[in-house]
Each structure stands twice: as structure tokens, then as C-alpha cells.
């Protein structure tokens, strides 16, 4: 099946790199992939997002408006994008950053305390990997091993020391997702 995933948050939260890693992993598994970032004038701050498509077939439009999954890391993006998800799909969000949860009834919603977990792991930068881990536990778009492979490519050499930490983060996310009670208001 074709995954059309939206990842959105603040500039500093690593949403673009999360998407890139996911796309890279998809490619490593021989799938067709595209990564479409939002880009603005070179000024800091503001929200960032990207659309990642992973598909067995050739990808037509890299730009879609209805998503098969959403990973959302800040409040503004939640308001902006929750209604762009296709019904009955999964929406993950980072708990400490999003105080008013999504209002849709027809989604499989999973809040993830990624920031908190990341801080426990000792580096808040890996919060995005916690999110990714949780997401992949819900939707096995790619295998965890491949994500680690991908990280080797997407992380600059000088940060390879952090690979184990990222692996942990992914695992924590996985566990969280497996143990979590999924908030869904559907009957």
C-alpha cells in the first residue's frame, strides 16, 4: 500500500530529518519514495513540515492533501493538519507540546510523551526518533533495522556516536506504542 505521511512541528524539533530518515529507509527497502519539505525564507523559528510518500509503485504527485498518517509535534500544526487525515488512519502527537488534543472522532489517535522520554534518555534531540519508533510500531512502513541503516546515511559522520542513542529512542517509542491505550472515540 502507498503511505502518504505528514510530519509537522517547530523548526528545531527535527521533523524534516525524521521524514528524511523514513524516506531513506523506504528507498533502502526498494520502495519508491519522495520527501517534500515546506521551505520558507531563511529566517529562524516558525513551523516546518514535510510530506513523505513511501509506495510500491511509481509516485505521481509528491504533493497530497489527504494523508494516510500524521505525526504532529506542535499545537499550530495540529490545528492546521488534523482535518487533512483520511478517516480511520493513525495520528500520533507529542504530548508535552500539544495541550489541546485532536477533536476528530474517526481517527486512531496516539499521544506520545516523546519529549519526556528523550530527556530521560539524556538528549531531547532524539524525541523525533521516539515518535518515529512509535509510528512504525503502529504502521510498519519500514523495518526498524532499515531505519538504523538509513540513520547511518542521513546522520553526518561526526554524529555517528549518537547512533546507539537513536536506536534506544526508536525502541522506547515502539514500546510506548505497544503498551499505550489508543484513544479512539469511534464505536
Amino acid at each position, binding site marked *: 500500500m502507498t503511505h502518504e505521511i505528514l510530519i509537522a512541528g517547530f523548526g528545531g524539533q527535527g521533523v524534516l530529518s525524521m521524514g528524511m530518515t523514513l524516506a531513506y529507509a523506504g528507498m533502502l527497502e526498494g520502495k519508491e519514495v519522495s520527501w517534500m519539505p515546506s521551505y520558507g*525564507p*531563511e*529566517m*529562524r523559528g516558525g513551523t516546518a513540515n514535510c510530506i513523505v510518500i513511501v509506495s510500491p509503485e511509481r509516485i505521481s504527485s509528491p504533493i497530497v492533501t489527504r494523508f494516510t498518517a500524521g505525526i504532529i509535534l506542535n499545537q499550530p500544526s495540529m490545528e492546521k493538519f488534523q482535518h487533512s487525515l483520511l478517516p480511520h488512519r493513525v495520528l500520533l502527537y507529542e504530548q508535552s507540546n500539544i495541550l489541546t488534543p485532536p477533536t476528530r472522532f474517526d481517527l486512531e489517535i496516539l499521544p506520545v510523551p516523546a519529549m519526556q522520554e528523550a530527556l530521560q534518555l539524556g538528549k531531547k534531540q532524539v524525541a523525533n526518533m521516539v515518535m518515529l519508533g512509535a509510528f512504525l510500531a503502529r504502521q510498519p512502513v519500514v523495518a526498524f533495522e532499515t531505519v538504523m541503516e538509513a540513520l547511518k546515511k542521513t546522520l553526518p559522520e561526526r554524529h555517528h556516536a549518537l547512533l546507539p542513542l537513536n536506536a534506544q529512542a526508536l525502541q522506547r517509542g515502539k514500546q510506548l506504542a505497544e503498551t499505550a491505550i489508543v484513544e479512539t472515540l469511534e464505536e
Partner: protein
Amino acid sequence: MKPMMEGLETVYHRPVTLTETPMHYCPGCGHGVVHKLLMEVVDEMDVQEDTIGVAPVGCSVFAYHYMNIDMQQAAHGRASAVATGIKRMLPHKLVFSYQGDGDLAAIGTAETIHTVNRGENILIVFINNAIYGMTGGQMAPTTLLGMVTSTTPYGRESSASGYPLKMTDLVTTLPGAYYVTRQSVHTPTAVRKTKKAIRIALEHQQKHKGTCFIEVVSNCPSGWKMTPLEANAWMEKNMFPVYPIGDLKLDGKILHP
């Protein structure tokens, strides 16, 4: 700890000609300070109605969001030509252009030189942060030798990319220039001096003395990949020796040539 203001008088307040809009600049960026000073002087001289500004293409492209005066946004490098057009049509208004180093010293070199050479009766404010901020930190003509930018990944080398261009020194030699100074805004004293310079320049313009040119050696924390405090320290240590602070030309006379 909340301030207790009863019985106290206001000794400094945000200039009224600065709009309420929060500025989009990165934390600690010098652009904000210079914007503030321009509007402080406009307030003090009470010339809001007489002042027309020209914003460049650069991070300060949105200056007109923050300065509550009539403004025009010029094409990249052409701010002084646009200012010339305005001033020639409205000779009794106070006209200034506000330009970065890419805008004024790279693509706008010809317009800068000729505007000053004609002695256009305007003020040119030149923010020299030695880099292209808006486009993500490429080399500027004023980038220091050895300095790493996204287009000098191994440090600027004169053989490949030439030397730091001292536009302010060049325009000083032009007869059209009446007042030329190089200042900064990283300390309270520096800020006071720069404000003084702006005031002097606008007063000269009221007297139709010719071109006034103020370079502000400034920072670009984001482009330099430093904290604001690191950036200002780096600036003092590395930029001031190449771009020494001080007056270059007073009342049409070149100082210690």
C-alpha cells in the same frame, strides 16, 4: 521579581514610530537595534511625515513592517537608485536607504558608487554583517579572509574569491559624500554613537549637504552559527580590525587620509 514603578519617571521607552509588530529577526540580530535607532531619531526630530525609507532585499526586506513611515521596497541592490528617484521628485523630504552588504556592496556596487558620486542628498545606512543572512549564509563581498560560509566551505581565499571589500572607504573618497562614518550597535556606548550619527546625517540632509553614509558593522548570529553574545565578541575581535570603527569623513573633509 516584578518591577515597582510607582513614583518613577520613564527614562527610556520603545520609540512610538516603531510599529507594534514583533520583528522577524533572529535573536540578537543587529538589524533590530538599527531599526529602533532610526525610529528614535525620527521621533526626536519629529519628522515622521517628512521621512521616506527604502528597504532592500535582504533580511531587512520587511523593515516597512516595523517602521511606521512611508517606505518603498527596492529590487536587490537598487535601494540607492530607488532612493534617488524618490529624492529627486521630493527634494524636501528626508530619504534614506537601508541596505545589507550583499545588497549594497555586491549587486548594488554601481548604484552605490554613482549615488554617492552624484552627492544625492540622502542617507545610506549600510549594515555590514559580512554574510548573506537572508539566503542562508553565503559569502558577502565583506566576508573576512578565512571565514567559512556556505559558499566558502573551506574559508574565503583571496585567490578564488577576492578580498573583503571596504565600500565605506571607497565612497569616502567621492566628492559627493559629505558625512561618512563606521559604527556598531553591540554595546550601550556604541548604540549611543550610532544614534548620534543618524541624527547628524538627517540634519545634514535637511541642510542639503550631500550624501551621508553610515556603515554599521553588525552581526549575523544565525549565519555565523553563534549565540548573540559569541557573535558580538567575534565581531569585535575579527571584524573591527578590518572595518575599524570611527568617522571617515566629516563636513565633506576626509579624516587622516
